[in-house]
């Protein structure tokens, strides 16, 4: 039980959530208390009498994972048991950016010693692909279906990194499941800081994104290589490290292998959306200096 997360969980074949979770727990050597709001991860790992966890685990409701984690942190402080482990939240993007954003803001504001990890699969994939605040523009979901008039989601992906930075918390970073060693290093670095920490990990979803089960890592890598998902690291509000891209690829390469973006190549407004996504990628590359 090297990874503190066992086989036999109910994730789809090729799901990237267990990859992110096992590498985080491995980096922390299992010394943590896990809080998990409702979402895919809860469904797959904590069915009754079928727990995949090897660490203390609590499931909270959708909106209050950050508040529960803050409570655990306060209790550990009051009891003098801070050395027993770190408090870690594994939340989905819906629980982070939409439903739980109030409690999250409160936890950041009080600066509790909590590592908050957002597993970003860019929609509510547990209930079957409904759009969330972190869904990128143009994505075909059941609540923003691509039809004759609309080409999928209108609007932009919420910038949760800027949201976390605005609270002046000590450590903010993004990562991708395509680079597990990077996840391990970032988690180890994050727990060195006292206070609230935020890491956002891109986790492609096999069923929601419409990809093959063996393409999860390829897609996660392409999102980084097209600069649509910049890998950045902030310490005390300063940008300290970015993952440079050797040869930046056009966004079409990332879009065409996913079913949720397939309509963009024949929809009358599809070209506009692709151009907008390319503009977002160019903006990211310029803002963070991603090109080598």
């Amino acid at each position, binding site marked *: 039980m090297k*990874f503190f997360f*066992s*086989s036999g969980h*109910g*994730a789809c074949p090729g799901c990237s959530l267990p990859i992110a979770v096992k590498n985080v727990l491995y980096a922390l050597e299992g010394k943590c208390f896990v809080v998990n709001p409702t979402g895919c991860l809860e469904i797959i790992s904590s069915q009754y009498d079928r727990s995949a966890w090897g660490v203390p685990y609590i499931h909270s409701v959708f909106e209050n994972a950050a508040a529960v984690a803050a409570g655990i942190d306060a209790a550990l402080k009051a009891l003098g048991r801070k050395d027993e482990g770190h408090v870690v939240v594994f939340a989905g993007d819906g629980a982070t950016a939409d439903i739980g954003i109030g409690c999250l803001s409160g936890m950041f504001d009080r600066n509790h010693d909590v590592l908050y990890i957002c597993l970003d699969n860019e929609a509510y994939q547990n209930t079957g692909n409904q759009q969330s605040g972190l869904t990128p523009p143009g994505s075909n979901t059941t609540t923003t279906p691509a039809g004759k008039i609309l080409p999928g989601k209108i609007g932009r992906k919420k910038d949760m990194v800027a949201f976390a930075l605005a609270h002046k918390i000590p450590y903010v970073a993004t990562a991708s499941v395509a680079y597990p060693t990077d996840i391990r290093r970032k988690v180890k670095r994050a727990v060195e800081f006292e206070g609230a920490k935020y890491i956002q990990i891109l986790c492609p979803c096999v069923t929601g994104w419409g990809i093959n089960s*063996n393409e*999860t890592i390829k897609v996660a890598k392409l999102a980084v290589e097209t600069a649509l998902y910049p890998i950045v690291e902030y310490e005390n509000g300063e940008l300290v490290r970015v993952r440079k891209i050797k040869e930046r690829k056009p966004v079409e390469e990332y879009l065409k292998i996913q079913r949720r973006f397939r309509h963009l190549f024949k929809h009358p407004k599809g070209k506009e959306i692709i151009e907008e996504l390319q503009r977002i990628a160019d903006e990211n590359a310029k803002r963070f200096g991603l090109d080598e």
Partner: protein
Amino acid sequence: MKITLGAVSKPYSALKMKTGDWGTHWPKVDEELCTGCGTCEMFCPDMCIEVVKVGEEEVNGKIKEIKKVKVNYDYCKGCGLCAEVCPTNAIKMELKDIYKV
């Protein structure tokens, strides 16, 4: 205080659920090509790949461990990620016998 009532699950009780029959393919490791680097172990979403020591060899007077990959077919869902990430292409996905027509 000991809590045993309510929805308390024991750690790793998910091991009861054998997910090995979910997939149609399973990975076969070519022992000659496998270098035991552990990349597949790091990526496997079902924690069913393990790098094990199979022996020792002497290289330039130093004793070096030989490591190979072992797959636990009880839980492998056959997603094929290990074959995709393997740097030496030592893993091939093969159709299970019961699905061969």
